[in-house]
């Protein structure tokens, strides 16, 4: 079946009609697009916690973010930092889609948000408070808002949705793709008529220490696919996408960024932290099958691309297995720009893919000097490149071998539908 032109038997087509992003290189679609095109770097010294005692302490934090314009109904104390990102991004996405809250409220909806850490940033703070004053001093508002479900139910409350399923998908660093995939399934099956899907996470000590101790934090910047790459930088932010069926998008004359063609999930079931090549291959193939595309149709891969020694070699080996040594499409890593925003990462990358399709350019992999022959790809080094992108693949690999790959496609207009 033609990927962008489903026949009469085809399942309903699902499109992205709104994007909300909170990232270290830009808040909102316009600023984020500029950051992608310019190859901005979000790396800077960490302010979230004291980095004394670590040999280095950079991350990609969201600074100067004022949620007030986006969050109107919810007391800000009711939301942890990750939920603040997700709720603000949801409001941005709704506005970007040209929808007022009431229009979403009237439809049966899904809100699905992926995350690695939920509100672990709050738990960091509670541990410090425990050490200082004991657990009796935990503020009730924080004790109520920490559970991971608040990342999605916070959106429901802020938009005052009623006929809605709210789900937080906590499948670590692939969670954003999982959440978008669930939205695709819920729209395909007819279970819902609109879906707000994405991911959110906040920089926290817990995760920085974990990656640091595993020897995977870069001392200065993230250099995916580079011979001298030294690891990842932790990051934060959120992306929420508005998904709806093509027919409803056309009926209301919505702007369409891209079509969600399919996705694939698979689990290594081998190791808590090391990725597995054959399982990544299996995930990519499942995504291609679901999307009805073949490898030669893929114009761009947005890699998981953490910039660690192990990830980049294993991921590129899997890509090579699927596409062939000489037929790998340009393969970039958004993480070179915004660090690894954990559960938000693949959602933000999906937003970047949709923008790349719409705007006709490939965001660069920055900080790149010399490609590592062990993971040799055309990573579009340092400068964005103009390109007509029809099919884009977004990889996400998580601790525990939880892999999710998403396929987006250019929407070619109703005359081809």
């Amino acid at each position, binding site marked *: 079946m033609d990927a962008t032109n489903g026949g009469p038997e085809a399942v309903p087509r699902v499109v992205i009609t709104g994007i909300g992003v909170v990232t270290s290189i830009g808040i909102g679609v316009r600023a984020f697009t500029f950051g992608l095109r310019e190859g901005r770097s979000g790396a800077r010294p960490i302010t979230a916690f004291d980095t004394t005692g670590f040999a280095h302490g950079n991350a990609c934090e969201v600074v100067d973010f004022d949620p007030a314009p986006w969050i109107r109904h919810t007391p800000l104390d009711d939301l942890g930092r990750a939920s603040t990102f997700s709720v603000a991004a949801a409001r941005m996405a709704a506005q970007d889609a040209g929808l007022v809250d009431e229009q979403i409220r009237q439809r049966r909806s899904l809100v699905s948000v992926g995350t690695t850490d939920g509100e672990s940033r709050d738990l960091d703070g509670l541990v410090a408070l425990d050490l200082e004053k004991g657990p009796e001093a935990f503020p009730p508002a924080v004790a109520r808002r920490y559970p991971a479900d608040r990342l999605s139910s916070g959106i429901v409350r802020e938009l005052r949705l009623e006929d809605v399923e709210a789900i937080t998908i906590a499948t670590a660093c692939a969670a954003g793709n999982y959440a978008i995939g669930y939205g695709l399934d819920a729209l395909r099956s007819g279970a819902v008529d609109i879906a707000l899907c994405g991911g959110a996470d906040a920089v926290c000590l817990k995760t920085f220490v974990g990656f640091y101790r*595993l*020897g995977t934090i870069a001392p200065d910047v993230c250099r995916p696919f580079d011979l001298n790459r030294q690891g990842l930088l932790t990051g934060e932010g959120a992306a929420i996408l508005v998904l709806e069926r093509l027919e409803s998008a056309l009926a209301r004359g919505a702007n369409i960024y891209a079509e969600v063609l399919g996705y694939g999930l698979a689990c290594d079931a081998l190791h808590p*932290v090391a990725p597995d090549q054959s399982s990544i291959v299996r995930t990519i193939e499942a995504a291609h099958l679901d999307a009805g595309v073949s490898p030669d149709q893929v114009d761009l891969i947005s890699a998981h691309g953490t910039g660690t020694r192990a990830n980049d070699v294993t991921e590129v080996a899997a890509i090579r297995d699927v596409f062939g040594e000489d037929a790998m499409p340009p393969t970039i890593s958004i993480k070179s720009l915004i660090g690894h925003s954990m559960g938000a990462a693949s959602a933000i990358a999906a937003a970047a893919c949709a923008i790349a399709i719409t705007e006709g350019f490939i965001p660069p992999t920055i900080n790149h000097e010399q490609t590592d022959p062990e993971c040799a790809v055309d990573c579009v080094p340092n400068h964005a490149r103009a390109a007509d992108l029809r099919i884009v693949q977004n990889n996400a690999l998580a601790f525990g071998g939880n892999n999710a790959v998403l396929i987006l496609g250019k929407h070619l207009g109703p005359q081809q539908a």
Partner: protein
Amino acid sequence: MPFKNPPSPLADETKNTIKEIVCDILEIEDDEMTDVSLFIDEHDMDSLRAIEILAAIEKRLNVTIEQEEMARMVNLEGVYAVVEQAARN
């Protein structure tokens, strides 16, 4: 450097501590491990457990071991050598 002092052997107590740490992390009994038995080939060590061993030794013995040294930590003898060197630094 043209001339090197012979390495001063670690105290038996330190060696016992190291062996205890390694056996605990690799989930085996003391008598299953010798000074030369190989962690990966004979005791199922993987990359995460290698870092666990490094981290536990750093913390317990208050030394700093560079990540690159993990390549030498193939058995107890290798670990002793790395720790001796780290203790001298």
